[in-house]
């Protein structure tokens, strides 16, 4: 009796999988999605590998919402679109002027959609960025994923995925800065062009250049594997480039609640990676080089903070810090308070290594 019962249960257990079985061979497995437009008039692009032709197919569709666009795209493919292997979403710079969450909701709501994926903003329409991946042997999304990961390692793009972006979109106390990509002059490659600044859920229209973006990440105390800055050193009428790599950052913020002033002290330890003049073992040269880097970085820090405050874009998470440790100073309309804060950066640079040459 029991044995029969167990067998019956076991066979039911096997049956349970049938309804939700999804086989890759029956799906167009999309790795890259592009979104253009706004609520009511979206245009979507879906790139999936065509193994027979050894290239990527791109399907284009229109719809009133991102989900509707996908439904329309399904009408044009021989196999249903499947986003479970999605690795990158590209959104046009016009689309992100509207609340970003409008296009991301479907990714958070449906558990089949991955959320540990990359997102970037394109200069102009998304279409040419999707199409340049057509002839790639690998997945279109993987190309952009690798591209962004390597740029993250160079401390140009912040390390973000869809989940962290979503989390920040719901916070008043921190803003996102999304990777910004352009097309190269020959239109064959994507180029990292800095980061787009958001205030709340909307793109402010301001883009930080790669150099400013690196500075912003240093202000955030988020240097990645490489964070290099190059400056021109002028000495005895000659100009000589210096490249320094950030090794460590020590950050201390001191808040004066009454004056609404934050003193932002940074101690940055660097290694000299390029200095053809050499002779860094000579104290005057060493000090001059160190001072030059410090002055340049000080100016860059001030410039980036000015831009961030001007755009009411709190990408550094000053709001988070204030809310947690100075709650009396924190107010719900944080962006307005943030713009009126007195942010005073102070950078001290120390050269701690000079490579294998003196």
């Amino acid at each position, binding site marked *: 009796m*029991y044995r029969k*019962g*167990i067998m019956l*249960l076991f066979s*039911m*257990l096997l*049956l*349970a999988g049938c*309804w*939700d079985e999804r086989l890759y061979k029956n799906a167009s497995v999309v790795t890259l999605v592009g979104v253009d437009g706004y609520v009511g008039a979206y245009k979507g692009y879906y790139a999936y590998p065509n193994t027979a032709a050894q290239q990527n197919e791109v399907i284009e569709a229109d719809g009133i919402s991102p989900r509707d666009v996908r439904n329309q795209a399904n009408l044009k493919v021989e196999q249903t679109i499947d986003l*479970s*292997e999605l690795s990158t979403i590209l959104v046009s710079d016009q689309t992100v002027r509207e609340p970003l969450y409008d296009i991301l909701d479907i990714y*958070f709501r449906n*558990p089949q959609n*991955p*959320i*540990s994926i990359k997102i970037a903003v394109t200069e102009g329409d998304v279409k040419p960025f999707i199409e340049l991946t057509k002839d790639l042997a690998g997945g279109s999304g993987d190309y952009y994923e690798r591209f962004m990961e390597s740029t993250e390692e160079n401390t140009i793009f912040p390390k973000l*995925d869809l*989940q*962290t972006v*979503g*989390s*920040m979109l*719901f*916070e*008043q106390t921190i803003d996102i800065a999304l990777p910004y990509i352009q097309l190269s002059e020959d239109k064959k490659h994507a180029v990292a062009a800095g980061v787009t600044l958001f205030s709340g859920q909307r793109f402010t229209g301001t883009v930080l250049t790669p150099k400013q973006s690196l500075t912003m990440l240093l202000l955030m105390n988020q240097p990645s594997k490489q964070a290099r800055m190059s400056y021109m050193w002028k000495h005895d009428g000659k100009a000589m480039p210096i490249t320094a790599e950030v090794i460590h950052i020590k950050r201390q913020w001191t808040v004066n609640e009454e004056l609404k002033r934050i003193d932002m002290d940074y101690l940055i330890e660097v290694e000299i990676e390029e200095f053809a003049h050499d002779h860094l073992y000579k104290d005057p040269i060493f000090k001059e080089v160190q001072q030059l880097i410090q002055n340049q970085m000080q100016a860059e820090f001030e410039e980036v903070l000015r831009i961030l405050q001007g755009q009411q874009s709190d990408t550094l*998470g000053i709001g*988070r*810090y204030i*809310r*947690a*440790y100075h*709650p009396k100073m924190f107010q719900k309309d944080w962006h307005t308070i943030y713009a009126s804060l007195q942010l005073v950066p102070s950078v001290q640079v120390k050269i701690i290594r000079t490579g294998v040459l003196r």
Partner: protein
Amino acid sequence: MNFSLSKAQFFLLLFIIQTGVVYISFQTPLIIYSQHSAWFVFILASLFHYGLLFFFERYYQSFFLNGFFRWVYLIYWLLITAVLIAYMGYVLASWVLPQTPEWLVVMLIVGLSLYANLVRPETVINIGVMLIPIIFLFVIFLMLAVPDLTWSNLFPVEWNHTKQIMAGMIHSMYAFFGIEMYLIYRPFLKQDLQVKGKPLLIYQLVLFIFYFLSVVFTQMFFALEEIQLIPEPIMYILKSQEVNFVKRLDIFFIYIWLSWSIVTVMIYGLSFRVLYLSKKRKHPKRSIVIYHLLLAILPLFVMQFQRIEFVKNSIHYVLIVFTILLPMMIICWNKWRGKRVS
């Protein structure tokens, strides 16, 4: 019913009842109501829980249930188990089995519980052992989220916000789920075994750390505004982690959680058996089958978004009555009358 429990079996039974089903979701209401102070409120709630365990240990012999209260608890367990199964079915349908008929999922869960409760009670008592390593896996994989945690989300703690603290304490009740079982199973512990003191403290610490980690991780992972939209935060944290060996880590853990929750349902079934069969019955097996038949039918009426939300938003009040107030009242009443469990 005649069986005896060792200390390890007793505490394992309690641990599974208290953590099964609610572990993936109890953090959301707690954080919504107590905001940044959630972790602190949970520490207070755990101290209260420890006090309650202490009280139960001291007076468990006075928890004598007369015919009326026996039926009150039997009906309460039946309904609470039906709600748990409904929630399990709902979570499965949302996360992994959207197309599978809900009745089939319910049948499978109930079928397993029926089988376990038709054989010797030791089967249900010992089955929890297989869960120990996989529950550890839960915690280990949660650690993958450490780089994504934001420490400042834990502050400011609003010590003087009494309303917030009270609301948080009430919603911490989910972590006390099934604590009345202490009183049911305590008399079955082998006579010479001591529970008060170190064993009770260790149990409390293990339970506290296990729950506290989940509260702190959830608080640090999600923004306050975001957590209101996330009903199963632990699953969401696991879903957002990228590992090489599996595309969706959440599916792997949904099934771990499912097996853990099924054992909880089995233990509720065993409790029904223990209480119902504490009096001699003519057809004990028939009663168990009827209990499970009801369990197969009742959840189907609850497995909808609005009903699940209603249950989630109100069940903590039911828990306060049946896990704290009623046991205390019964103990005090019996103490006054001098009645004890034989």
